[in-house]
């Protein structure tokens, strides 16, 4: 089991009020799953994503990633997990504006402490994988939205993480480009990666093998979808 979540709570203090963003979530995710978390805004899906991505720690409950209890980790250990195990793809791409594509993709490798030549080589490979070899020296503002998201995907993949975590990855793209990006995620999944999508769009969620619907900080339904062909990795 890659991810095991038991009785997860996340409570925010907003002024004098306590907001229960997550209200007891249980969820297991296997390696090489393709999972979409759906729900209206305020359902707690972003909070769940932040917790899975180790950007945040739970108020109560347990989250183990590859057998490691995340709630007990220090700041530095969380940073290491984010670096080694998680590849983030954001709605707004979140590329460094002054850095070119290659440098953006290199970023996780810098924090992984790789040597310059190794970083260059692996960043080039990742960019090749998303088909942007000819844009390697371009800065984000010289790239289209779809190209920017591809750079972001290359960045997410470059350190070979256990989970690709994508938060509304097509939210800032037109339908056609969005479909291309979703095809890219399909390929990534087929290559053996675990992909977790967070979205409120059913059209996007249908690309996934499994859909988890959330409401009011709880899992409302958890369905597996047939069809679309299977991944190459574990069942």
């Amino acid at each position, binding site marked *: 089991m890659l991810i095991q979540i038991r009785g997860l709570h996340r409570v925010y203090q907003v002024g004098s009020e306590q907001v229960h963003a997550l209200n007891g979530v249980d969820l297991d995710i296997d390696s090489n799953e393709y999972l979409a978390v759906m729900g209206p805004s305020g359902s707690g899906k972003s909070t769940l994503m932040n917790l899975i991505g180790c*950007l945040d720690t739970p108020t109560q409950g347990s989250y183990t990633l590859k057998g490691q209890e995340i709630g007990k980790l220090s700041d530095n250990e969380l940073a*290491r997990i984010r670096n080694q195990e998680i590849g983030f793809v*954001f709605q707004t791409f979140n590329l*460094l504006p002054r850095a070119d594509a290659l440098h953006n993709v290199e970023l996780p490798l810098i924090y992984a402490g790789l040597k310059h030549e190794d970083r260059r080589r692996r960043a080039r490979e990742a960019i090749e994988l998303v088909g942007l070899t000819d844009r390697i020296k371009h800065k984000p503002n010289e790239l289209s939205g779809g190209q920017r998201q591809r750079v972001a995907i290359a*960045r997410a993949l470059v350190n070979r993480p256990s989970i690709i975590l994508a938060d509304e990855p097509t939210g800032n793209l037109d339908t056609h480009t969005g479909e291309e990006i979703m095809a890219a995620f399909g390929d990534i999944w087929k290559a053996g990666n675990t992909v977790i999508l967070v979205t409120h769009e059913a059209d996007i969620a249908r690309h996934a093998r499994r859909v988890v619907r959330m409401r009011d900080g709880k899992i409302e339904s958890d369905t597996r979808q047939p069809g679309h062909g299977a991944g190459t990795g574990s069942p």
Partner: protein
Amino acid sequence: MNLRESMGIALSALRANKLRSFLTLLGTIIGVGSVIFVLSVVEGLNRYVSEKILSAGSNVFWVDKFGEAMNEEAFEDALKRPDITLDDVDAIRLGMRHAAAVVAGGQATAPVRRGSKVARNVSINGRSAGYDVVEDLTIERGRHLTDLDDRRRRPACVLGPEVVDEVFPGTDPVGQQLRVGNRTFEVVGVTKAKGKIMGVTQDRFVTVPIHSFEKYWRSRFSYAIYIKSRDQATLPLAVQEARNLMRARRHLAPGRPDNFGITTADTWMEIYRKITGGLFALTIGVAAISLIVGGIVIMNIMLVSVTERTREIGVRKAMGARRRDILLQFLAEATTLSLSGGLTGVVVGVGSALLVSVVTRLPAAVSIPSLVMGVSMAAVVGIFFGSYPAWRASRLDPVEALRYE
């Protein structure tokens, strides 16, 4: 690498907005620049002074009524002391065993005249024989004054070259007569030019035998006794000897203070050092204020930068940056900023020191340690004032930072 990246970010931000960068770094530039400037000028003065004052008369000291009366009170006390007479000088000369020369000196100012040619404000130096050794004077033409000139009360004099230029332009003054005050003297010699020390000419004087001086100018004040020791090693002995002789002559009981002053070249150097030390302290004050202000401006800019780049910090954290990585990144940026200011300050400081030395002929010496100091001061400012913004950046919560618009 991360460091190089951070420096690159700081430098490109500097380049992107030159006027803002200049204003940001102005405090640092002024702080470092003024320190380099003053250090260079003071260093130059030091070399100059030790060359001119110390080399010429390093074995020379003098006994006079006032000594080193640095304030009004000390001066008024000194006024009550007995005058030093020519008899005192003779007694010292007879008593000194460590002296190469003991010379009586009296000083007045008078115009010097020949026909229609007049030189005003000329120093009239009454001197006994041996003054050439003590004053390090070399003769250019003619001869020096001798003991015989003095004993015979000859109206002879030796001129400094500046007086010659004004009163005897184009002619050889040796053997000619001239009016010093309202007395007639015969020129027996002209000295070699010594030039200026600290902008004061050393060549505008008429030296006359001490007894003629006493007769015609009747020194209002007491005489000075110039003493040259045999060598550098015997200087302290000679100073002590002269002091003992004076005290014995004046029947000063042990424990009572001297009622005369002894001044050595070291005393002068000390006074000089006090002055430059004051100047230096003042500069350090100005520099410290500029650097603090400069540092605060840098801190402010860095805080703005941290806020502007909150999202970037969030992204970096999501990619695995630890607090330490973020802290170092922003520290490196702040230090790059302040170092740019420091290097500019070095250029400004060295430039203005050289400019001043060209315009005023004051010597300026740029020393490597002062440059190193200036640059390190800038680095310290960057690290110190960059710490807080960098700390703030490192403490940002990644979720909040990623959500920041």
